[in-house]
């Protein structure tokens, strides 16, 4: 419904200085889970590491999620291929029964490798068109660059933490030691020097493709067609268009399964979508309070 309420919207806000919108197409179907992107990002941006956090048991993922100290995060999902869940119609109970059957017939101890799928996906800030984080930021620390990306200015951020729960993707987080929030800058510093972001450059398989968003979307469409032809059932482009609750994203993904399997929201919305009703409700409540106050005085004057 409502257009973003920023008065001056990119690219107009930059006038002649505006650059084409830059972004990422992360093609998870060719991600080998090497985490080079994660490490390159941390190296380039001098992000602290936490080797002591310990073993999570989440397959090969020990950094858990995106946050103040992880701006690229590689997810690992071990799955059975159609043999399992999907053919059982999505019910865990059926799937378990099916697995038991497989076990009993001896199959279970015998090359289930074929029924396996190991999804790997490198997640990052989506650089939303309507970025809730930016819109709720009271200080203007979060701003939109000439490349239509969303960046935190660390000297302006006051650590109010508002953007943290505002992001529909759980991207931003506070760094405990300094209280401010941090996230992917889409390597604003490198972009300004006409350089590719560190993560994309490090990616050996080109799973992370960086470029002008319009090009990337075309490329992604072609890739999707190819995969679909090859029979990839749940392959889908996630956030590749403008027609959703965040008005499109600068970083979008080719996923091989539903978004929530990767920890991504199926229907992300920019919370300012509801700005009108929220302010409206607050106004009504304030009026009700006024009413209540008046009512308290309405009867019997002392």
């Amino acid at each position: 419904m409502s257009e973003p309420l920023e008065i001056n919207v990119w690219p107009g806000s930059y006038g002649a200085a505006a650059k084409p919108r830059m972004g990422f197409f992360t093609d998870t179907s060719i991600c080998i889970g090497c985490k080079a992107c994660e490490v390159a990002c941390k190296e380039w941006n001098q992000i602290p590491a936490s080797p002591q956090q310990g073993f999570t048991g989440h397959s090969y993922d020990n950094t858990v999620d995106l946050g103040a100290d992880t701006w690229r995060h590689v997810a690992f999902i071990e799955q059975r291929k159609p043999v399992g869940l999907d053919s059982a119609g999505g019910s865990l109970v059926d799937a378990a029964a099916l697995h038991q059957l497989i076990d009993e017939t001896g199959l279970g101890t015998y090359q289930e490798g074929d029924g396996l799928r190991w999804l790997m996906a490198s997640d990052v800030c989506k650089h939303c068109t309507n970025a809730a984080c930016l819109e709720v930021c009271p200080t203007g620390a979060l701003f939109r660059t000439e490349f239509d990306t969303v960046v935190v200015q660390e000297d302006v951020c006051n650590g109010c933490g508002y953007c943290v729960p505002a992001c529909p993707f759980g991207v931003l987080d506070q760094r405990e030691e300094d209280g401010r929030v941090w996230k992917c800058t889409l390597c604003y510093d490198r972009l300004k020097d006409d350089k590719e972001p560190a993560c994309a450059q490090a990616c050996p398989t080109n799973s992370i493709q960086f470029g002008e968003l319009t090009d990337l979307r075309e490329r992604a469409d072609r890739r999707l067609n190819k995969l679909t032809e090859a029979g990839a059932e749940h392959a889908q482009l996630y956030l590749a268009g403008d027609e959703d609750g965040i008005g499109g994203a600068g970083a979008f993904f080719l996923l091989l399964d539903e978004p929530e399997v990767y920890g991504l929201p199926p229907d992300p919305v920019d919370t300012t979508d509801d700005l009108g009703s929220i302010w409206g409700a607050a106004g009504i409540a304030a009026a009700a309070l006024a009413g209540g106050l008046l009512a308290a005085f309405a009867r019997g004057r002392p």
Partner: protein
Amino acid sequence: MGSNMAEQHPVGFQWVIEAKERGARVMHVDPRFTRTSAMADLHAPIRPGTDIAFLGGVINYILQGQREFGDYVRHYTNARVIIKPEFRDTEDLDGIFSGFVPEDRAYMVSSWGYAGTDGELTAGKKEQTGDVSGDASHGAHGMKLERGDPPEEDWTLQDPNCVFQILKRHYARYTPELVEQITGVKRERFLEIAETLCANSGRERTGAICYAVGWTHHTTGVQIIRAASIVQLLLGNIGRPGGGILALRGHANIQGSTDIPTLYDILPGYIPMPHPDSEDDFDRFVELNGPDTGAWGDLKSYAASMLKAWWGDAATPANGFAYHYLPRVDGDHSHYPMMLRMLDRKTTGFIVMGQNPVVGSANSKLQRRALANLDWLVVRDTVEIETAAFWYDSPDIESGEMRTEEIGTEVFFLPAAAHTEKDGSFTNTQRLLQWHFKAVEPREDCRSELWFAYHLGRRIRAKLASSIDPKDRPILDLTWDYPTRGPHEEPDAEAVLQEINGRHADGSFVSRYQELRDDGSTTCGSWIHAGVYADGVNQAARKKPHTEQNWIAPNWGWAWPGNRHILYNRASADPDGRPWSQRKRYVWWSEEEGRWHSLGDAPDFEPDKAPGYQPPEGAKGMEAIKGSSPFILHPDGLGWLYAAQGLVDGPLPTHYEPQESPVRNRLYGQQANPTRQEFHRPENPYNPSAGQPGAEVFPFVLGTYRLTEHHTAGGMSRTVAHLAELQPELFCEVSPQLAAERGLEHGGWATIVSSRAAIEARVMVTERVVPLRVDDRIVHQVGLPYHWGRKGLVTGDSANELLPLVLDKNVHISEYKVSTCDIRPGRRPRGPALARFVADYRRRAGLEPS
């Protein structure tokens, strides 16, 4: 197969992804479902150590179905060669070839030879073993042929004693059923792989096999690779674009460190290290080690040029180019026997540069005991690694089995400069040298290896300067005069590269190895590298982008020898020199111009030798190689389906079980490789194998491997916060079934035990590890990455505590990839209880008196 390429060679793996995008079918045969399997079209879980059975099955599939590339096989391989009638196969002798000498656990190889050659091929005994096999893949030294011709051949391939028929008989029993019973790979899956290989070979198509240490880390490692060579030769996949067997090598420059070796038994360019039996006679050395025919026929030029490079004016034709200055190899001085000599106090000093044996070498406790018996130990590394700290921080100190006060070793830790802090070259898996430039100055006292070696040599020479002792001459006569630069007097690495390249008498640079002479008029530090500094240009430093040259990219870096990117590429054309097919054309003969053309690579053949060329009587060296024989390093110019020599454990790969296996060898009475190097001593007990009493105490197969997130013994990754956090703890991978059987909890702890030690690891229950049905039983595997130790930002027990010391006799590599163990829930005992715990296991297995 035998490689986890996506994880261990992620940068190279981009080309696999690209090939896949272009329609290649990617298949992965690995005990575990790895990140490589995740990217493959097909994954087949295989029982560790059974690849020969699998590949033997493929060979049998090819031969039974007549799927071989007939013309290629007849012309380019030794399929047609007749073998001596006295040769006996493992099929006749229940798992042993003819010539076995049980007392020596070695073969007399004379019966393996080509019919009509004389019988003096006596490889397989003592030092000679190391010599003939060495680490080198050429392995051709010594075979004497007239004109490069095998004396007896049958071009119809029908003679029962020809290689082709021997091969057929040898693998006849390797049926899909047997493959399934031995390897655990379901037969349909096996057949799918075999058929895919066949269907993608021939004139129009090629297939490649990639391997790494999943193959080499076995007591049968060399023979596994041989088996792959047979497959690829039969299918015509060698010397052609898109074909080959790609050895994915280890450390960034491990290829370089075998080319200019850090190995004890070879000299630069795979020239064998002299043995005492050549006495001090250079000509005798050449005679013993070089065949007369093929590229090795010029061994004398290569060796003489090398000696000239080392000893300059002191090396003259008259004194055999100071050949007598070279040390002699009088026995097995590979890593493990060396450690055993330390243990026995026969070796008392040790310099460790860029290695971390306490974590990286099998049987860690034995490694530490050996170090504790030294007088002095020098460790040069970038960080304080476990090997440098063994005397105050180790599991033995923790358990009370060793006490710091009782360790007499004096330990020196010298800080090393990292690769970013020095100039030099890396040689990659493809034999491509790539020069790198120093990015930053090393900090404080950190120095490069080059600096260390050079200045150490300088000081020694200064100390010896006035010596008249003849034994000091080799050191004093060395050409030890590299220019130095900067405040630390860093030797100029390019000057070393120039020495490696070699010069003519007039000082100009040699531009190809064919220019080397045996009369002292050329110098060359490593014949295979001749030309790396051709025209006075550091060819390895060329960095022309692929967009500005053809797809072979000959102007990026420099590949030895002679910048040839595909070896034996003459085989990409048919015997008459025409491409096998337009689609797969690469090198071909132009009749008009009388020379070989190529798509952009350097032909790995004499540039103007016509396909029809027949060697004249008495021809030697390259002259003796036919115009239709592409395998120029071999004296007969042929690809060897059958290796008459060069290997110590047989001319044909044969399935043996690993040293420690829960399974009996289904093919032969002979359980394991009869020539494997065992070390029976109290510090190195072996778990009983199937059929031996006590085998049930260690019922599971243990495999060790790597993770992308760490590097080898961890000194380079556990010390780096951004890497350490990615895999912070040692974990073991087990199947849900094994977890259920042993009560292991995902995320909890497990104790893993062998007769050597017990360690603890976090538990990763995953369907990526499957129990395999082998014969009629289930074999469970326990998987362990081996990167952890007690130093660094993240620490943990080392997998190598568990492993035994047992080696492939060909190359003295340890069987890291498979042994047996037990696993139970919970953490391991601490303190003295740990030793008692392991001893109890040994008692139960009958390895220790109760």
